[in-house]
């Protein structure tokens, strides 16, 4: 699971009002290089929740993103784009769990696939 996917997933348990962001528990992390697409990154920048991305990437062992939401102008910097690209699309959570921020319920992640299935009493 890439952190772009993490940035849009939310816990949908009945009664939970704010299931985002899911906390990451990482057991195995892998990196897979993909080609950078600056146009796509600029488009995503506007749609992302920045702090959850910073926090998630730090949990995954990458702490090079600025803490506060950077100004749009950073998107002109190749160095920034490279880091942003790496955090968003190249780091994968292979084994571990996603934890609902309200209830603490764990959604396991195995072979890179989060299991977001709800139990009967959670629907």
């Amino acid at each position, binding site marked *: 699971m890439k952190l772009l996917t993490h940035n849009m*997933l939310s816990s949908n348990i009945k009664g939970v009002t704010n299931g985002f962001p899911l906390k990451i528990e990482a057991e195995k992390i892998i990196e897979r290089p993909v080609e950078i697409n600056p*146009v*796509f990154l600029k488009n995503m920048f506007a749609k992302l929740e920045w702090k959850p991305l910073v926090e998630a990437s730090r949990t995954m062992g990458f702490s090079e993103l600025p803490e506060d939401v950077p100004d749009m102008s950073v998107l002109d910097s190749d160095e920034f784009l490279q880091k942003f690209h790496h955090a968003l699309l190249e780091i994968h959570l292979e084994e571990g769990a996603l934890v609902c921020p309200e209830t603490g319920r764990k959604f396991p992640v195995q072979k890179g*696939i989060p299991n*977001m*299935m709800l139990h009967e009493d959670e629907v």
Partner: protein
Amino acid sequence: MKLKQLEGLLGSLEQFSHPKIELEQYPTGHHIASRMLFSAENSFGDIGDKVVADFGCGCGTLGLAAALLGAEHVIGVDIDVESLAVASANAEDLEVDMEFVQCDVRNFGWRGQIIDTVVMNPPFGTRRKGADMDFLSVALKVASQAVYSLHKTSTRDYVKRTVLRDYNASSAEVICELRYDVPKLYKFHKKKEVDIAVDLWRFVPK
């Protein structure tokens, strides 16, 4: 990529080895899948550089087609972990990137407007009534740009009326009518193969 080439690649994919009837698991044929994604990209520009979700992705045919046509990020959502394993192996074989989430589409939790386009071949709702409409309702909330879906031609008027009135669609258009060959997968199928008429729809959310 040319249509023929796309169709050829999709034709090589692994499909369900033990299909589950309760989930209405039928493979999306490579003929239909290639045409569906090819028109989404070439007539509407809804795939290339986009974030695409494949709802009820099964073995991943539609999502992988999107990846082959240049989608930047593809997420397949399915309830069945065995299908997701096949889909994941298919992605590796094609050397494309696709993400997977195991989830009942009806309970899919997401935030924001990251997903541009949803593509899906939903269960037609013959085993569990209304399953295709449940998928459509969620897809139209999740997608910010377009939803491509297959529905039985016999339900055309109902689909149109419902999405415009209840599901937040601003437009609903049948792009073409296709023949869906349902191979004899299950014991209760008496005929060797049947053809059903299905519509390829493009919906635009409000």
